[in-house]
């Protein structure tokens, strides 16, 4: 790991569905130790950016580096929280087992998780106030609890950089607070967190760094310099200016 390298550096990234570009020539460089939000309207390519970054989607052009390395080499330093709706919650397993999946990357092929891994997974559940639900079948959890299980799983990856796809969508107030305190904890531990976020009101409150995206990268940098009515209005095509309260 190159200590001076940025956790995430994207150059000229273009992603397209057939001939329709979803992301156009994205440049993005996220510094260490920030809580970054990727903000933009529906169809702006926010989730696509995360997925393309992680190699879950074919890239038409451009490069992505994490800690100065291509993703395939930096996997172990990167934790991923997909959208909650991306998996089948009727899968026959319990919360602890899902969190344990976060340790699989460190284990590699074939090797089974040890007792220490289980304890670590339980500890990660505790961090999200979910230890009481460790043995609970995952379909019996509420939406917010399922989201916390996903975050505990990312925590179990012991990553340096976390990419999260809409962690606040459809969660209750308790979960929202649990997620925020986790994010702050991660930041104070020197980790970097990047979240896709769609709520303009809470963005400046939760995050200290922001990337405004609408197919192209409109602006990116520290929240206090980037979060201006002009930038936001440009990102949303001038439609929602009246809705924005937090803008400087």
């Amino acid at each position, binding site marked *: 790991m190159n200590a001076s390298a940025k956790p995430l550096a994207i150059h000229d990234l273009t992603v397209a569905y057939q001939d329709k570009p979803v992301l156009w020539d994205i440049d993005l460089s996220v510094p260490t130790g920030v809580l970054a939000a990727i903000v933009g309207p529906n169809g702006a390519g926010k989730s696509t950016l995360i*997925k393309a970054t*992680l*190699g*879950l989607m074919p890239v038409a052009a451009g490069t992505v580096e994490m800690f100065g390395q291509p993703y*395939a080499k930096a*996997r172990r330093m*990167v934790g*991923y929280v*997909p959208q909650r709706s*991306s*998996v*089948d919650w009727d*899968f*026959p*397993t*319990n919360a602890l087992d*899902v969190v344990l*999946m976060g340790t*699989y*990357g460190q*284990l*590699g*092929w*074939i090797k*089974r*998780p040890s007792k220490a891994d289980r304890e670590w997974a339980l500890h990660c559940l505790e961090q999200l106030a979910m230890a009481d639900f460790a043995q609970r*079948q995952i*379909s019996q959890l509420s939406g917010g609890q399922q989201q916390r299980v996903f975050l505990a*799983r990312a925590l179990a*990856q012991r990553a340096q950089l976390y990419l999260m796809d809409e962690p606040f969508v459809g969660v209750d107030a308790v979960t929202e607070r649990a997620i925020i305190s986790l994010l702050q904890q991660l930041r104070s531990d020197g980790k970097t967190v990047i979240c896709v976020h769609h709520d303009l009101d809470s963005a400046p409150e939760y995050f200290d760094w922001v990337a405004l995206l609408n197919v192209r990268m409109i602006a990116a940098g520290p929240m206090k310099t980037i979060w201006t009515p002009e930038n936001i209005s440009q990102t949303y095509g001038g439609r929602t200016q009246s809705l924005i309260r937090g803008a400087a």
Partner: protein
Amino acid sequence: MSSTFAIILTGILVAAACASLGCFLILRRMAMLADAISHAILPGLVAGYFIAQGPSLLAGFFGAALAGLITVGLVELLKNTQRVGGESAIGIVFPAMFALGTFLVSKYYADVHLDADAVLYGNIEFVGFDHWYLGETDLGPQSLWIMGCLCLINLIFISVFYKELKLATFDAGLAATLGFSPILIHYGLMAVVSITTVGAFTAVGAILVVALMIVPAATAYLLTDRLPWMIGLAIAAGAIAAVAGFGLAFMLNGSVAGAIATVTGVEFGLALLFSSKQGLVARAQRLARQRIQFAADTLLVHLLQHEGSPDAAHESTIDHLQSELQWNNKFAQRVLDLAQRRSLVRCQGQQLELTTSGRERSQQVLQLGRG
């Protein structure tokens, strides 16, 4: 070894080999793909025989595994064109492959023992006759050896790659980001499904392989919410079907393979009705309980609304409930029983009144309704 025992043991081995893999097919929502593979391996089998210039076991396995993978690949390709939906893609690929297989059989093997009946229905009844010999030594029925090996291969495959199969099935995205190629795992699973199908179909035929792969696993899915248990229960359900199916066929003098598959269907039906987890009976009981619970709450709210008003005496009689709330006698009685058992309501002759806890509960209910 008696031939009866050989048949039953083969049936159990087929069931175990198929059902264990079937769990992952069910969880991956790929039941139809098993059906497709079971039909599509036919051209591969013929091609294998053609290259080996005779019915060679090994060539058959290789050909079939290859044909299975080609089928899966073609289905994926067709899906990726986004011109045909998932299940339709399967529906297009497998009849084509099967048709090619039947054509090849009729062209090159019209005279050998690879007839359509054997392919479709198998002949587990003859398991005992086809023995393997090492020099002069009788090693026992050939099918028994094949299915024993396949069963072992599958159980080893599942236990060695359990973690990877589980992860790729639950969350392919995470599997990919952690460096466990979900595509590789998918094709690996499909290769094992293909060779299992070839091995099993000589015993139970191509159609019934599907029954044993899918139905016991679907049954187990209804009965448990832990994956290791699901795999164990699926194998058990398959094995029980094998034994019971043989008994049934023996009693009724019918097709063994048909009877086994029928029993798997009966097992599924029973699980669907009586599973404590999500069975229809359990759900109906739960709904009935909820209905009475809700009716009791309705009664409390009704009493609260009229409490202390001039018409309270009139509104709070048992007869009035029956006419106004449209409850029949029996239902009203059950609701009243519940309310009294929980001491929410007191009964003074014909007159009903709320207890303190009943009043609290009804206020709570109103609050909930508002929130």
